[in-house]
């Protein structure tokens, strides 16, 4: 008769570490909170609705890029090209809208077509990245570094080497600004709220206090966050993303189409970068090739700060959003404190390293707990 296989449960002796564990798991939230408190206490004008709205709006660029980047990093890849994809999308959108409006089209359909065109063109580098990485087996770093140069060049070709797309028609700019710098709800101190547009005809003293409560870029980004967090966390596609990152051989043997999956992941990354590019045009009423240049490494930083493992298999969209907000709060806070803007690089750099250290410590803690 076969002896019965019994695998003994391991005992959890380290209940004392619950607090440590809690801090390790949610340190990025706590850190964000601590920074908000710090800047609120030390910087005048930080703790205002206006400033928070500003931080959220500023963070949308990095957050959107970090959403796609999270998927990529979970598959143990990296996408270095999305910074220039943002720029390319903003340039395509700006040129298309400008030319259509100049050609006599109404503003609304021109904006819609420009947006669609920008998003479609933005997918191209993503598709090529995905094919190179998923099918040709070029390392993600190399493939997307090549695409970094290609997209950069393409974006500048489309502006004839200029930093921005030439003058947009004023009526187009107005509508773009109404969305990119507008808010669904405005808070009027002492008088309640106004919907859709900045209220007019108020006393100058009151006008200064008017604050956007739900800026459109934040709403758009929030919708994208919810959709992509849902896909990653709840769907089969999301599950397969984790499997591909955790053990690619296992994914292949389990019948997951890893090649196609990687193509989709890089397309998705290009897609969120494309949205960021279009949003850039709405916010700044101009298309610029270098729109996402600085935000690229910040998006990687946001992903890492948010607890996503650069070796793949682990990560969350919510973490990336918190990471983007941490960077946004740091930038804004340091400006309000009148600290030289250069310091933000140093502080963000330190935070990234701390983030990785904390995540390693957390993994060690988990092992310690189950092996006790």
């Amino acid at each position, binding site marked *: 008769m*076969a002896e019965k*296989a019994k695998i003994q449960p391991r005992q959890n002796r380290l209940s004392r570490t619950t607090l440590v564990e809690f801090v390790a798991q949610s340190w990025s939230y706590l850190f964000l909170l601590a920074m908000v408190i710090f800047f609120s206490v030390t910087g005048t004008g930080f703790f205002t609705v206006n400033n928070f709205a500003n931080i959220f709006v500023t963070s949308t660029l990095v957050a959107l890029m970090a959403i796609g980047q999270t998927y990529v990093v979970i598959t143990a890849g990296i996408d270095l090209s999305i910074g220039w994809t943002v720029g390319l999308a903003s340039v395509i959108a700006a040129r298309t809208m400008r030319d259509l409006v100049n050609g006599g089209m109404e503003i609304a359909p021109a904006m819609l077509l420009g947006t669609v065109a920008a998003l479609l063109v933005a997918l191209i580098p993503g598709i090529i990245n995905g094919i190179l990485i998923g099918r040709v087996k070029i390392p993600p770093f190399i493939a997307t570094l090549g695409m970094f140069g290609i997209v950069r060049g393409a974006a500048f070709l489309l502006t004839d080497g200029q930093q921005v797309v030439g003058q947009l028609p004023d009526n187009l700019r107005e509508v773009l600004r109404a969305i990119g710098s507008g808010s669904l709800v405005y808070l009027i101190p002492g008088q309640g709220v106004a919907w859709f547009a900045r209220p007019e005809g108020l006393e100058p003293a009151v006008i200064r206090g008017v604050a956007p409560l739900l800026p459109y870029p934040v709403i758009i980004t929030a919708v994208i966050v919810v959709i992509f967090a849902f896909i990653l966390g709840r769907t089969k596609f999301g*599950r397969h993303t984790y499997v591909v990152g*955790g053990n690619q051989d296992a*994914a292949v043997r*389990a*019948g997951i189409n890893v090649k196609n999956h990687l193509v989709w992941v890089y397309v998705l990354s290009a897609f969120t970068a494309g949205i960021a590019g279009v949003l850039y045009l709405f916010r700044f009423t101009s298309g610029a090739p270098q729109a996402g240049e600085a935000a690229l490494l910040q998006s990687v930083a946001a992903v890492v700060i948010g607890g996503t493992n650069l070796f793949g*298999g682990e990560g969350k969209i919510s973490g990336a959003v918190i990471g983007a907000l941490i960077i946004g709060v740091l930038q804004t806070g340091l400006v309000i404190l009148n600290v030289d803007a250069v310091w933000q690089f140093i502080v963000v750099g330190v935070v990234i390293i701390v983030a990785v250290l904390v995540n390693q410590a957390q993994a060690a803690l988990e092992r310690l707990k189950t*092996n006790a």
Partner: protein
Amino acid sequence: MHEPILRVRGVSKFFGGLTALDNVDFEVVPGEVVALLGDNGAGKSTLIKCISGVYRPEQGDIYFQQQQIAGRSPSEVRNLGIETIYQDLALAENLDVGANVFLGKEKIKYLFGFLPVTDDEYMRREAVTVLDKLDIHIPSLKQKLVNLSGGQRQAVAIARAMYWNAQLVIMDEPTAALGVPEQRKVLALIKSLREQNIPVILISHTMQDVMAVADRIVIMRRGRVAADMPRSEATEEIIVRHIVGSAEVGE
């Protein structure tokens, strides 16, 4: 005697000029544990990879339940009921037990009637059921596999094979990475597969394992089947002589 469930006939496999398998005949009947032995490079792994669909043999036939499977893809072979548990287990250690039992075949439910999401609760419940059947207890099923012991992971890999109604389980060095107590548990799992009439092909270098669980011993040497004997006729000495080839020389 049962009809063989797996029948390998005259299979040859070449890698460039190297003959990895040379006209191999091999069969397995339901409910037996067949140990596949041989030195490194003898062709054991190549043979199981031909069976599991990883390699396509150049010559010969492989019949599983009367169906030709030579040249089919790994997922087709798996769907027919041959589960291969490789040495590296092919588990996603960053995920929990339920996710691993259902790897690549995730159970879907519809949120609000239209949003397709993974049914994690269902997968976890089913994982428990199959683990119970194997008499394996894993403390926290929400635990990532990376935090489980080697034996527990091996158990998860076996549970996955069981869950998908394996008709034949192939195990490549299942005890190699384990401590002694865990090796015993894995051997017990193999016996419990046999009790459920599921045949097992076991590749192992560990002689004690082979002697403990095998019903039949097949020894490969230089791409050929050098010996095929019931466990009752085998001694360690005979086995070793066949593995190193001195049995033929001595005769």
